[in-house]
């Protein structure tokens, strides 16, 4: 699909007339295009009006089935909880499944965006981590453009840093992840470059039981053993 005319897909999107790959890539586009979001909103209202023209009352017994479902199924919270709490684990798990689904969609979208395919190893790792009972999704505070989350599991001793809308690193620099202990000690982790679309999915291994935060810095190519610049992003795993 051509990026020049991706803006013209809002109507097709609202009518569900895109195939799965187009849908995934358009959704990715939607997250960055206010104009298309507005258009989709208007077209979705229009589509809903078309649907109203087709109203058919369902059989009466369906009502009790539906209300019965509500009686036995818990509701999801409004947003991603930061910590796993007792009794809310199901909600976090459901959220993580959503996050993984979103990540997988992003991989599907990546197919359209060309050569920067995420390795299936990372994909497997993401699924493995999300499957751990202690898996958590942690937002990363960014001091540079971009959005990022960490998916971490101490059981698995691993995490994945998932980011999009990142800028390319300055000349001769790469992004590097750091494992920060509560004492302030830092241990070097993986270096990476975002793909052409500004996305990055980076797996890392760390003894997360003793990790206070995962930080990101710009480092010379090849990475550093100790940070040579201030952090540009921090995902705090423990309470301050």
């Amino acid at each position, binding site marked *: 699909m051509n990026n020049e005319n991706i803006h013209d897909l809002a109507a097709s999107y*609202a009518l*569900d*007339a895109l195939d799965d790959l187009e849908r995934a890539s358009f959704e990715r586009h939607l997250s960055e295009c206010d104009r298309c979001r507005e258009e989709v*909103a208007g077209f979705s209202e229009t*589509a*809903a*009006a078309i649907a109203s023209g087709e109203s058919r009352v369902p059989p009466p017994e369906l009502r009790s089935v539906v209300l019965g479902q509500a009686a036995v199924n818990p509701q999801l919270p409004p947003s991603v909880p930061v910590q796993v709490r007792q009794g809310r684990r199901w909600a976090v798990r459901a959220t993580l499944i959503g996050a993984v689904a979103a990540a997988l969609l992003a991989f599907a979208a990546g197919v359209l965006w060309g050569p920067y395919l995420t390795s299936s190893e990372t994909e497997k790792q993401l699924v493995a981590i999300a499957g751990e009972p202690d898996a958590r999704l942690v937002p990363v505070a960014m001091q540079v453009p971009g959005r990022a989350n960490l998916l971490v599991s101490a059981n698995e001793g691993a995490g994945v840093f998932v980011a999009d809308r990142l800028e390319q690193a300055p000349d001769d620099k790469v992004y590097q992840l750091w494992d920060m202990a509560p004492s302030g000690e*830092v241990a070097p982790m993986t270096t990476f470059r975002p793909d052409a679309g500004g996305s990055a999915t980076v797996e890392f291994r760390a003894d997360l039981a003793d990790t206070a935060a995962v930080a990101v810095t710009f480092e010379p190519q090849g990475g550093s053993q*100790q940070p040579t610049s201030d*952090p540009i992003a921090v995902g705090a795993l423990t309470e301050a």
Partner: protein
Amino acid sequence: MTCEKERSRVRHLSGFLRFAPTVGGLWSPYVQRREVSAVRLKPVENAQPDPVDPIGALLAATAAGDRDAFAQLYDVVAAAVHGIALRVLRSPAHAEEVTQEVFLEVWTHAARYDRNRGSARAWIITMAHRRAVDRVRSVRASQDRAVSAGVREVAPLPDETAETVERRFEQRRVRAAMARLSEQQRRALELSYYSGFTHREVAEAIDVPLGTAKTRIRDGMIRLRDELGVAQ
């Protein structure tokens, strides 16, 4: 590329000192973020009734766990949900399953509805249509897929007595607006929205280039949106 399996802590004083002055700065975004998420978790934000959107108000109450509100919400939108599922799927059994799935999703995801992204009604109908289309596509893919067979299915369903004046009025209004589209636009919209065709399949079915199909869909939707006076 360095990826340490073992955690080998590097405690160089210089490295630590480089980080140390920024530790306050490191943690402050975190504190800030926690405040933000606290605000987002506050049920009040979603529970605020919206005077112009009664369905939104029912959805907000549903998000707060109110089963009576959920029952009322069902009574108000079930016919639209079931109707579009039936129109797309042409099978009462499939349509009922989709209706059931949609309302389960409405119940579990009510708190995730963001009214800045559109009306509660559109949120629910979008969900219903998406599920119906995904289902009809997977059914079609598993059958001997002949696009022509799908096209034949577009024949309208027999009319059914709509049980409220309001609903009958809305149906008449939408059908009148549809009737004012060009024949080509209406056909393109019907094939995509009612038959669950992708724009590529629409192009094949009416034998025009993909670009033409896209344009008809887009122009038809713009015209319909304006005819129906949908707020942009």
